């Protein structure tokens, strides 16, 4: 469970998040959508402990991301929008590195299982520098989920993935028990996997609600998106 209270984040004079609050519950898939620069990625990065914030508070399963950052980060899996990794390591070396830092003693089997599931097992011993964007996305996804985090933060998760893997990922998200937050521009993905949706604009929440209710009211997620533009 992730609780965000009165969060404000500024980049110089630009307000990326303006006093926003969220509660991302367990067994819930929450989608955050909105225009470019709405603050979706910033919100996810703050929750993942990657960037600091100016005001407010964020707790992950009751652990403050500031005061108990290690405990909080242990409970998070994060997939960035651009999966930059160490190009000189192979996929397997990279994942074992992450597993070592997360102290996952029996990660080998999990890595093998997930790499097979995502169709990347044959490329695991190649250097990451030779991977396509989609392949990097898969490795990054494995690194985000291999420790079975109770909270999963996915930034544009299907971008660059082939249709089969995207479908596998959607199924994985639907089967998950923990908290899942997805930042995406894809109305189709929201409709397929999310229970709750937030529409953001210039660092503020414009609309939120259950996906079913929003679809009922606006006809589709896309319809709701355009109705709330401006």
């Amino acid at each position, binding site marked *: 469970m992730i609780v965000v209270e009165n969060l404000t984040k500024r980049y110089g004079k630009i307000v990326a998040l303006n006093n926003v609050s969220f509660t991302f519950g367990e067994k819930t898939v929450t989608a955050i959508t909105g225009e470019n620069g709405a603050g979706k990625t910033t919100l996810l990065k703050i929750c993942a402990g990657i*960037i600091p914030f100016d005001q407010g508070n964020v707790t992950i399963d009751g652990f403050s991301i500031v*005061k108990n950052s290690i405990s909080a980060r242990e409970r998070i899996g994060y997939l960035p929008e651009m999966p*930059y*990794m160490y190009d*000189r*390591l192979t996929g397997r070396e990279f994942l074992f590195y992450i597993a*070592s*830092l997360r102290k996952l003693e029996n990660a*080998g089997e999990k890595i093998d299982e997930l790499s097979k599931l995502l169709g990347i097992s044959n490329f695991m011993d190649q250097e990451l520098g030779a991977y396509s964007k989609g392949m990097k996305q898969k490795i990054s996804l494995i690194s985000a989920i291999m420790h079975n985090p109770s909270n999963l933060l996915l930034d544009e998760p299907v971008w660059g993935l082939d249709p089969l893997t995207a479908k596998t990922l959607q199924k994985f998200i639907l089967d998950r028990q923990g908290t899942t937050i997805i930042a995406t521009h894809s109305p189709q993905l929201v409709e397929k996997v999310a229970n709750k949706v937030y529409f953001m604009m210039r660092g503020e929440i414009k609309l939120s609600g259950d996906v079913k209710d929003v679809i009922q009211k606006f006809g589709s997620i896309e319809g709701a998106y355009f109705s709330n533009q401006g």
Partner: protein
Amino acid sequence: MLETYKYLFLDVARNFFRNVKTSPLLYLFFGFMMFFSVVGMAFITLFLLRQEAEVNMYQVFLMIMFIITMKSGVDFHRHYIKSNTVSYPLSTPVSHQKTISEIFLVVFWLQLGLWAFFSILFSTFIALAGVKLSYPLEYIQFTIGVMLGTILGSLIAMHFFSSKRIRLIPIPIFFLLLWFYREPISTLIILLLAASYLIISFRWALDSYQFVKRIERNKELNQVKIRDTTRAIFYKETTILWRDHLLFSFIFSAVTIGGFSGYLARFGGDSILPEGLRQLAKFITPAMYGFLGVYVLVIYTSVFTSLNFFLAEEDTVWLIRNLPVTEKTMMRGKVVSLILPFICSIPFIAFFSAFEGMSVIPSMIWFVIFSFMIGVAISFPLGAKYMGKKSDVLLLYCVAMILFIILALTIAFENVVSLYTTFLIPFYIITILVAFISMFLSIEFSTNIFKLNYKSF
């Protein structure tokens, strides 16, 4: 018929021409080297003939055979045992023995081709010099040596990289026979025996391929494992340094800088400087060359590497921040990763001392260790500060300047101390301790810089 042979030959030839095309200068240089080696050999032959010195032809035979043995061993290893493409012909219904014998045939013709080329070059030069040499007879004898060398080299490669090295036993026996029975008939018999053993060995040769693949797989699995945090960071950083060829580069720099500064310290700058600048060189003492050598080396192995550990994380900061690892552990892992660059710097001491004598070794050891640690102490906070930001040459320049001032002051201080005592070991120990404490404090400082700055907390 002979499909593997044809395609491997084609592949070798195309690879050669492609390499020549992509690196023409390198091959031109290599070609010249080879040409002059052969011409040099011919020149030595002429010299020996004119001196009427007696040349032991059997020793020449053994030398040619030995060179070819080594080369064919390497070639057989490359085209069969370590080859990535041989799995394709091996997976066809063609028998393994036939495939492997075809690979041997390629290696065989490559050695003979090379031998023929050099022989023609050699004999042309000799003929141009007007020497009447009964070369055809020697040529046949040496060609037998080349054939024998190819067989023995391939056999060594085949059985050395196999689970049953006991099969290597006949090979030293062949060498012993060659050594004791130095006449053409015996050589021919040994050639036939070795060829027979090779034909028998083709039946076992698949084992070599499987053996090497098994070792590679086990090696990969052993290297990729869960480690404790500091070791994992060390392994990651060292792997990147290794794959970027930086470790070789460090050793090469240590050797060349050590050798060059040692040479200048011993023979002075006037040995290489142009006339106009020689007066200037008289003001530079040998110690100053040592200082500059260490400084340049440490800029590369310590400062550049330390900064690179941070600046290379430009795009991967998200990963470091997101993982449940404290900033201090991350810093510790990065410092430990500097052990290898430090070890790579050590040849500097040996090469500098080779010119300046054993007496400079203690002071060089002290100065290299001290400078390396000070380099780390300065680089880490600045690296932590600029991590995730664009790498900047100004940053390197800034660190280089600070390092220069600190090292220059330390050397000046050492000079002052040496006016009062010749026993400088306590001074060295104290300064190294100071450098160590500085490095420790610097890591603490870097940890604080690296922490996320939450304004409201």
